[in-house]
């Protein structure tokens, strides 16, 4: 995606001492963040912006939950599965969380192998990450189906405040969309890695720019972010 080459041929100019040096280092020419490529910088800033989106969603949910006059349904009962005649609270969510956190692990390994130019392992690990993502979305679909059959709708539910269904479908839906987009990107980039596009410097279909193995890491940043967001959704929605 970007021109990430370090072509520094000379030592940089000496910096002034103390705070002034710190400031002029930050404000120095060409790049503020040395050795950070454009693509990576863009992803970090996008994630900051996306943090505000999820932050607003979660704050809106908390406001709704605190200000509604009707009682909030008990998450431990709503999100319980009947296994062997026994209600196990939050079991599905626990598995989903485990799967998603595991996918972060495989993603991190993919990044590592990517920088080692190990195409096969990188592609396999990325596809494995994507598979975990699909499993997560699949379990989410199962959970949605179960709740819908029990009568939960965005505008009402059998147990209490109508905002329960609204915020649940909206927030998990928005997060699920993020995971799905991540899966699509993982598959596309895994294919490029597998084909060796980043070794042959094949140009992108849309951007007509050369790709680099760094795109694996950039995709990884997005993926870890989506995982992190899930941790907050898990804490605020299911455990509260």
């Amino acid at each position: 995606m970007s021109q990430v080459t370090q072509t520094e041929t000379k030592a940089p100019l000496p910096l002034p001492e103390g705070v002034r040096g710190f400031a002029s280092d930050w404000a120095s020419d060409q790049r503020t963040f040395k050795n950070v490529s454009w693509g990576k910088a863009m992803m970090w800033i996008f994630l900051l912006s996306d943090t505000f989106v999820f932050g607003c969603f979660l704050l809106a949910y908390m406001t709704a939950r605190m200000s509604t006059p009707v009682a909030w349904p008990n998450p431990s009962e709503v999100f319980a599965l009947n296994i062997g005649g026994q209600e196990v609270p939050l079991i599905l969510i626990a598995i989903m969380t485990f799967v998603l956190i595991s996918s972060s692990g495989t993603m991190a390994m993919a990044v590592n192998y990517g920088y080692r130019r190990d195409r096969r392992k990188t592609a396999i690990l990325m596809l494995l990450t994507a598979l975990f993502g699909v499993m997560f979305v699949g379990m989410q679909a199962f959970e949605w189906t179960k709740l819908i059959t029990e009568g939960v709708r965005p505008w009402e539910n059998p147990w209490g405040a109508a905002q329960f269904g609204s915020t649940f479908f909206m927030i998990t839906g928005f997060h699920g969309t993020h995971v799905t987009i991540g899966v699509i990107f993982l598959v596309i980039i895994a294919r490029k890695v597998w084909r060796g596009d980043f070794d042959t410097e094949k140009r992108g279909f849309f951007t007509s720019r050369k790709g680099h193995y760094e795109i694996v890491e950039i995709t990884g940043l997005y993926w870890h972010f989506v995982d992190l967001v899930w941790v907050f959704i898990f804490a605020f929605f299911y455990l509260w």
Partner: protein
Amino acid sequence: MVNIPSSIDDTIPAAEVEDVELYHSHSWWTTYVFSQDAKVIAIQYSLTAISIGLVALVLSWLMRLQLAFPGYFAFIDAEHYYQFITMHGMIMVIYLLTALFLGGFGNYLIPLMLGARDMVFPYANMLSYWLYLLAVLVLVAGFFAPGGPTGAGWTLYPPQAVLSGTPGGNDWGIILMLTSLILFIIGFTMGGLNYVVTVLQGRARGMTLMRMPLTIWGIFTATVMALLAFPALFVASVMMLFDRILGTSFFMPAIVEMGEQLKHGGGSPILFQHLFWFFGHPEVYIVALPAFGIVSDLISTHARKNIFGYRMMVWAIVVIGALSFVVWAHHMYVSGMNPKFGFFFATTTLIIAVPTAIKVYNWVLTLWRGDIHLTIPMLFALGFIVTFVNGGLTGLFLGNVVVDVPLSDTMFVVAHFHMVMGVAPIMVIFGAIYHWYPKITGRMLDETMGRIHFWVTFLGAYLIFFPMHYLGLLGAPRRYYELGETVVNPTSAHDLNIFITLMAWTVGAAQILFLFNAAWSLRRGKESGGNPWRATTLEWQTPTTPPPHGNWGKDLPVVYRWAYDYSVPGAPEDFIPQNQPDPERRSKEHST
């Protein structure tokens, strides 16, 4: 051994990034329509924004007709009046000002002023424009949808925004409005990431952050703010869309409509106000900061003097940007939120006056004993300072809870924000167009037409909005379709309304002269050459004018100095371009 630099280039750091390879267009379509060149995208953004802005201008004419001659024009009924208000406000704030400053000036100036070939992600930049165009089309579709566009007021407050009593409330209007906003935000994010990363990571050799022209500082800070503020509007739009389409109750309390209990219940209308103004107040500065930056450069260039207190100007921009995120609830003093919040938000609001005042003093001190050329960009810049001070002072009134409460929802508020957020930035936009038009087209705009345009616009704007303050103090409410023979309105107020309307039509008509000028000068204007204003910043030093795709030809510029070397004592000319090495320094370094 003494390390003697062999050339002047050794005194600045070596290139850290290899030169960018640009996408080369190979057909008319990819050169002018689906272009990835930031300059073409900038022009596309600007033309679209100005076109939709003209629609909003016509809407304001129609509103003024109704206010001056209530009931006289049969086609302006109450519903239409509210639709005009809503669309006028939304178009002007978001689809004109935000898009023109960031999408238009941002795209054109960031790569050129920083010595870059293009934005860092040209393809995403192109998508940004097309999503913006789509958002505008969806917005315009509201005019043709059954029930017409939404008439909820530009703030779209629930619950009324989605109720049947409001035009478009239970029709297509509100749906199209919210969809358009969501599209705009997605498109803006693509462009905004480009602007931020280009400023941070794509500058020329020697272009340190503290050598950037203030224009770039303004646009950069505004873009960062937009990336953090638009999410709140995005979330609010999504939630209201669900309230309207799915019947959820995020913002809808239990409510009776036409004697019928609605299914909604338990939602929080104030939550929407918080989300909206968490976006809405930064939005004011998203528009103002680029204007601050551009006007600093205009004043410095046309007064032939370096900007006074450059560092303070930069820090003021950054501090204003940061503070503007903690003042949003001063729009909500009468909303019914906890009154204790009012104290906090009034304090933060008044603190913003400090960095803002620093900026105003520095502009004035830049002019002090400068070699002021009263060119048209300078006239507009001066017009901006005066207008901004005026609008800012009434802002101090409205920032205080006790003064705001009686003035809330009167014409005083309308006058205040039109002065500070309408007229002031528009002055800068005109100044900037007169200033950079020669770079974009290679020709000057006509001087005589420009002067007429300035004086009619400037004086007219005051004749429109000064009386409006008085109307507000009398108690004339805003957003009323018809004031009627109410106690608060003496007959003089009615005459004043007719006067304001006449002025509004005059100022609007003056803009036709401006458009004519822009079209006429395209072919017949005086040839400008590459640097007609004898300015220092990099965009005036391009090898050809207008700059080609890639901006700089074979070699990228190297920056040796800050952007404000005007009237330097001992220099052969009264300006030294940023990319001109310092001959004295060279000889000094060679002698060591």
